[in-house]
């Protein structure tokens, strides 16, 4: 039987990918960030997941505004890195786990989560930067990846509660897949950031750290947060954090926090990273 063993959340700032790709990770501005992820990389190398279900959002790359799926699941075997206007990142192709992704699509839709289905897609920094942060620069990614794209660009995104429930349904679906697989769920995006308007650059450290605390301490408080609270307190684009609740919903009620890292700034954003193991 497949089993979800842990969840990881991380920011997915594009400039971090660019810094790594251009060999700037040792520079004083970037070094503290990459150092902060050293423990996470070690953890990931030891956890050795077979499959990562990676929750992220596309930023006007594979999807534009013509069609806006709220939740879209990748069910194919290969996802190339996208050209976001500077040529594709020099990172390996992302390989899917077709059988598990088909099983997820079928189970989740029959469980009344009306997903859109993706058969062909290039993946932007939202997906590849978390892989780089957690795995470094390998020749090939060390696990299969199932992308779950969430709309957080066009308001309103799905609610935090809906995201949490989708996570719970993902767990049920994974546990009904009869192949021995070690599955890790990643939630990405956040933390505080506002990228537009006169309020650009707002960061709320206190709020972010309470959010990190409550992922293990009081997840019911987080599930109840509404969109206005995220936008008001953490910046309009901080609303990406609803995606972390999909990851959290896929874990046990009780989890153990095994690592946390928080740093300001990564370009315009508060960088957050947390690892939670099922206890």
């Amino acid at each position, binding site marked *: 039987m497949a089993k979800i063993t842990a969840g990881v959340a991380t920011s997915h700032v594009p400039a971090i990918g660019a810094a790594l790709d251009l060999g700037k990770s040792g520079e004083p501005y970037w070094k503290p960030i990459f150092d902060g992820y050293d423990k996470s990389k070690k953890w990931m190398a030891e956890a050795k997941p077979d499959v990562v279900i990676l929750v992220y959002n596309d930023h006007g790359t594979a999807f534009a*505004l013509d069609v806006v799926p709220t939740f879209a699941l990748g069910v194919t075997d290969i996802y190339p890195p996208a*050209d976001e206007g500077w040529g594709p990142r020099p990172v390996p192709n992302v390989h899917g786990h077709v059988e598990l992704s088909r099983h997820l699509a079928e189970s989740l839709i029959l469980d009344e989560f009306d997903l859109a289905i993706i058969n062909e897609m290039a993946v932007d920094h939202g997906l590849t930067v978390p892989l780089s942060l957690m795995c470094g620069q390998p020749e090939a990614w060390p696990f299969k990846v199932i992308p779950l794209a969430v709309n957080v660009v066009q308001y309103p995104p799905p609610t935090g509660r809906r995201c949490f429930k989708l996570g719970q349904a993902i767990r049920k679906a994974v546990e009904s897949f009869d192949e021995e697989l070690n599955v890790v769920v990643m939630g990405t995006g956040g933390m505080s950031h506002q990228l537009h308007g006169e309020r650009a650059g707002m960061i709320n450290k206190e709020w972010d750290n309470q959010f990190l605390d409550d992922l293990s301490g009081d997840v019911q408080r987080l599930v109840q947060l509404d969109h206005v609270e995220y936008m008001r307190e953490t910046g*309009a684009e901080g609303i990406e954090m609803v995606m972390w609740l999909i990851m959290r919903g896929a874990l046990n009620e009780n989890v153990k926090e095994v690592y946390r890292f928080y740093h*300001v700034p990564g370009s315009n954003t508060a960088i957050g990273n947390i690892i939670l193991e099922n206890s």
Partner: protein
Amino acid sequence: MRKPREYDDIPGTYVFDYERSHRGYHLNMFGMSLLKPENREAFLADEEAYLKKFPMTEEQRQSVLNRDWLGMIKLGGNIYYTSKIGATLGHSFQYIAGEMCGMSQEDYADMMIKGGRNPEGNRSVSEKY
């Protein structure tokens, strides 16, 4: 008429709701088109001619020609799309961010290094906190 929303009370923020999305659709899809290198070349070669291909308003067109980054947002632009215009023109994201809040790129970058904009007083217009 658009009914007032709770999030209208957040200062300096233009939530990309359906109304703004509809208003800015062609402006944003113009930004999207710049993901292709041949379109970037065509735009840089003759901005006005390239902009005419998209049925946006004259005001939106002018905001692009004038590099009015905050104006684009107010006219329905979404930052993930307007930043593609910025990238095509060789601007870093922090330059555009600085422009939108009336700061030089250096001052904006410095503010971020010092921990970012303080949320104190920046969360609610009506309740001033």
